[in-house]
């Protein structure tokens, strides 16, 4: 088991290396530079800036320099957020994004599993149709529509909750962003659980459990759920990685200090180091969550073994 985890983590290194290399060069091929302004900087100033940030060197030298720093855990200074290193920016933003994403994920799991199970147990009833309709709605309506509408209704018209802002992570500030993030996930999870739960309820091991006379609730929660949540687990890998690394839309609309914005702003301003930093974070999350998914799979499905 431990050997398997180690092997997987080692195997992720070439993948990460490939992603870093590809992103580095793609980013540099793009026209424009971090110090392009409406009014061009003075030649001497530009030259000095380029020297300070090592942009005057040949590209391969910069690449090796970046890799060298990276190996020592240094992501470099940010080009647009003066006086901040990329570590500082990500270090202050990541906890916010993770807090929001994890809350949304938890909410989505609980609510999605609950709705999906109820729909499966009452298949083809009005509850089932209701859940399906809500799920379609949740998947279809984009988050950049949901977020401003929630903010408008609850923040401006009803004045129940703050329309935006982080406020050190107060529950009132977190509620609307979390709902926005969780809504599409609830929808997907409910749909997946409904489908697999219907199948699981008809399977032999559930029939056996029923035949033993186990209470109905126990049969559903323990025996059917274990099989039914397998598709959700494999869906959750990439979904969790995306949720925890922040959403640019939610952060922009609610004015939250997460890391989702850094990526877009960095790419638009050619803040090379900041973009690289966010790409690395996202890639690491994807790798780690894919591993967690595989381990969970083994724990849930006795037919899967990693030795």
């Amino acid at each position, binding site marked *: 088991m431990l050997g398997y985890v180690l092997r997987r983590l080692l195997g992720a290194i070439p*993948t990460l290396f*490939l*992603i870093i290399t*590809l*992103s580095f060069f*793609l*980013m540099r*091929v*793009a*026209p*424009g530079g971090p110090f392009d302004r409406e009014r061009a900087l003075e030649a001497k100033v530009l030259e000095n800036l380029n020297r300070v940030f090592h942009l005057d060197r040949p590209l391969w030298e910069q690449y090796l320099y970046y890799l060298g720093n990276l190996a020592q855990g240094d992501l470099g200074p940010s080009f647009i957020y003066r006086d901040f290193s990329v570590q500082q920016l990500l270090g202050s933003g990541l906890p916010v994004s993770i807090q929001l994403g994890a809350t949304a994920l938890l909410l989505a799991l609980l609510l999605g599993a609950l709705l999906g199970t109820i729909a499966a147990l009452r298949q083809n009833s009005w509850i089932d149709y209701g859940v399906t309709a809500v799920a*379609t709605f949740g*998947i*279809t*309506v*984009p988050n*950049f*529509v949901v*977020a*401003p*509408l929630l*903010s*408008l209704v609850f923040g*401006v018209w009803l004045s129940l909750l703050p329309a935006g802002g982080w406020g050190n992570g107060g529950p009132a500030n977190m509620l609307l962003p979390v709902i926005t993030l969780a809504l599409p996930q609830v929808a997907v999870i409910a749909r997946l659980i409904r489908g697999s739960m219907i199948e699981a309820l008809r399977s032999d091991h559930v029939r056996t459990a029923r035949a033993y006379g186990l209470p109905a609730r126990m049969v559903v929660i323990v025996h059917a759920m274990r099989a039914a949540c397998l598709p959700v687990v494999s869906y959750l890998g990439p979904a969790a990685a995306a949720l925890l690394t922040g959403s*640019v*839309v939610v952060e922009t*609309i609610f004015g939250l200090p997460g890391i989702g914005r850094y*990526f*877009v702003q960095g*790419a*638009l301003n050619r803040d090379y180091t900041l*973009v690289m930093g966010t*790409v690395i974070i*996202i*890639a690491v999350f994807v790798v780690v969550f894919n591993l967690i998914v595989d381990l969970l799979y083994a724990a849930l499905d006795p037919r899967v073994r990693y030795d």
Partner: protein
Amino acid sequence: MTDVATNTPELAAGVPAKGRSLWATALGRLRRNKAAMASLFILVLYVLAGIFGPMISPHHYATVYPEYVRVPASLEAYPREDEVVPQAESVLARTRLDINAIEVEGTTLRVEASSEREIDTRVTRYLDRSNIFSNARITEKSADGRSVVMEADVERLRFIFGTDGNGRDLLARILISIRISLMIGALATGVALVIGVAWGAAAGFLGGRVDNVMMRVVDILYALPFTFFAILLVVFFGRNVVLMFIAVGAVEWLDMARIVRGQTISLSRREFVQAAEALGVSPGGILRRHIIPNTLGPVIIYMTLLIPKVILLESFLSFLGLGVQEPLTSLGVLISEGARNMRSAPYMLLYPSIALTGLLFTLNFLGDGLRDALDPKDR
């Protein structure tokens, strides 16, 4: 089960029974699906609105009406009834005539004026100078020329959906963005279709090492963070929407290639393909005539689900300010403008949101309906 007709009179009469093709069956099943048919109807309305809406809309999407910035949505025409007369009064004050009466009848303004001296007929120009009056003329003139009756057309504009922060008609802008969204959806999906089907069919049909290499390429492209890629494309192509969406289509073909490859592998072992091989049909011919037509079912399903995905992506990029550029607009741009102005002008957020959500809904429902109709499993 009702789809399969057995013991039909034709069979009894010895007439060869007409086989029902996959497509005929699918069409019949789709017709019975009310949600899908309603979606299809609404989608046709959207397409008509996208094609003809901007042509028949009374306002051009880029025309700015500086007097009517951010007027709320209403059925009433601007300027309002009670605003016309004061406007006329202020304009006519400069003519230094004695204004005896100002009346508004429908779209015509009627002014009776008199003066102690003879009135110059060029006096109508004062009215023409104002933005809301046009075509001013003198209809009656007394014999001594000291009193006249002037008429002018009042230009009355309706902004059913209100106007935006620059005084542009929101309805016209929504119509043009529906056109843009549909165009982009069709364009990018078309590109994804061509590349995906060609790549997947080739990989599946050639098999072996070629297949391995081709699918490895797909896997590697899969691993790239997509938003990053889209932003880079914007950076490369500048803000050229058409080029960008050809590029987006060129990214979205990965799933299509996988689906087609899987289908191709299972199809290439079927008897009719072997028969074609035995008859000496060239590999390209088999691929074109026998394999690709048979993969169309899943491809169409995937395509109808890809269109809303692409439209959503375009709106998302536009929302971030990376999509189409002013004065052209898109639903994403309108929504982001609406979100910025939602306190003072909530209608600017509501209408584009409804338009986009409705479009995505119909496409998704239609896709689901098609999947149910074309899925050979639950015949």
